[in-house]
C-alpha cells in the first residue's frame, strides 16, 4: 500500500515541479533541482525511511532501462547529421569524454576523495548511463546521480560563458561542448542557441554516454 503511495507522491511532486518551471523558466527552478529538493524535504519532514520509500521508488527507477533503449530513436534520426560531421565531432567527443574521466579521477585523488572516484568518474554523462557505469566501477550509483545533477548546474552556467569567452562560433562546436559536458541539461540549453546546436548536443550526449560506459571500466581502475 505504502508502495503505491510513494509512487504517487513522486509523480505528483515531479508534475508540480514541471508546472512551476513552465511558469518561471529560470535555471534554478528546473525540475531537476526542485523535484529532488522537495522529495528530500518530504522524506525528512515526514520521517520516511529511504529504504521504505525505495520499495516504491525502484518501480520507477526500473523504467530507466527502457529509457536507455529509447536513446536509439534520436540516434537513428540524427544519424545522417552525425555522419556528415563524423570526424570533428568524434574527435571532440572522444577527447572530451577522456578528459572528463581522467581529470575527475586525478582531481579526486589530489583532494583525498579517492574513495569517491568511481562514483565521480561518469559525472558528465546522462543519468541512466552514469548510474550503470558507476555500478560497473563498483561505485555508488545514488551518489553518481547526485554528482550528475551538480554537473548539470555547473554546466548550464559555465557552458554559455565558455562559448562567449572563447568565441566558439560554429554551431557544431557549441552543441558538442554542451552535450559532452552537461548531458541533457546542456542539450536543452543548446536548443536555446538553435536547432543544429540542440541536435548536435543530443548526439554528443549519447556518444559520450556510450564511450563512458564502454571505456571507463577499462582504465579507471588503473588511474
Amino acid at each position, binding site marked *: 500500500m505504502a508502495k503505491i503511495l510513494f509512487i504517487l507522491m513522486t509523480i505528483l511532486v515531479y508534475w508540480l515541479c514541471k508546472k512551476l518551471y513552465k511558469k518561471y523558466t529560470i535555471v534554478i527552478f528546473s525540475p531537476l533541482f526542485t523535484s529532488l529538493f522537495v522529495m528530500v524535504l518530504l522524506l525528512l519532514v515526514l520521517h520516511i525511511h529511504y529504504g521504505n520509500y525505495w520499495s516504491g521508488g525502484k518501480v520507477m527507477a526500473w523504467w530507466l532501462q527502457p529509457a536507455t533503449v529509447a536513446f536509439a530513436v534520436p540516434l537513428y534520426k540524427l544519424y545522417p547529421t552525425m555522419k556528415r560531421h563524423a570526424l570533428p*565531432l568524434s574527435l571532440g567527443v572522444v577527447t572530451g569524454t577522456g578528459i572528463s574521466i581522467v581529470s575527475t579521477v586525478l582531481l579526486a585523488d589530489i583532494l583525498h576523495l579517492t574513495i569517491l572516484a568511481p562514483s565521480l568518474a561518469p559525472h558528465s554523462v546522462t543519468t541512466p548511463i552514469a548510474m550503470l557505469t558507476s555500478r*560497473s566501477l563498483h561505485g555508488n550509483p545514488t551518489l553518481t546521480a547526485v554528482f550528475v545533477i551538480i554537473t548539470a548546474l555547473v554546466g548550464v552556467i559555465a557552458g554559455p560563458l565558455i562559448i562567449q569567452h572563447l568565441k566558439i562560433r560554429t554551431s557544431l562546436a557549441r552543441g558538442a561542448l554542451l552535450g559532452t*559536458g552537461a548531458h541533457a541539461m546542456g542539450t536543452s540549453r543548446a536548443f536555446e542557441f538553435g536547432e543544429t546546436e540542440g541536435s548536435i548536443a543530443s548526439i554528443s550526449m549519447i556518444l559520450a554516454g556510450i564511450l563512458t560506459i564502454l571505456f571507463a571500466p577499462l582504465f579507471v581502475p588503473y588511474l
Partner: protein
Amino acid sequence: MKRTVPIMLQLILLVSFAEIGNGIQAWLGLVIPGSLIGMALLFFTLKLHIVRLPWVEQGANFLLAELLLFFVPSATGIVQYGPLFDHDGWKIVTVIGVSTILVMTITGLIVDFGMRRKGVPE
C-alpha cells in the same frame, strides 16, 4: 496517413528490447549493461528496417521526455549521505566544476577548429 502503434504497445516493445539486452548480457556474461545492448539492437533493427520508426517513436519520446521522473527516486537517496556532503561538499563541487569546465573548453575548441578547417561558415 502514417499508421502508428498505440503508445502502450510501443512501451512494451521498448521494454522487450531492454529485457532481450539483459538476457544477452546474462547469457554471454558481458560487462556491458543489458539496456545498452538493447539500445544497440534497436538502433540496428531500425537501420535495417526490421523495426519501423512509427512503431517506437512516440514511446521513446515519452520515456526520454520524462527521464527525470524515473531518476528522481534514485537521486533522493542523497538523504542518506548528508554527513558526506557536510564534510566533503566543497571538494566534490570543485572536482566536478573543474572537470566540467575542462571538458567543455577542450571539446569546444577541438570541434570549432575542425569545422573551421573544413571551411564551414556557421
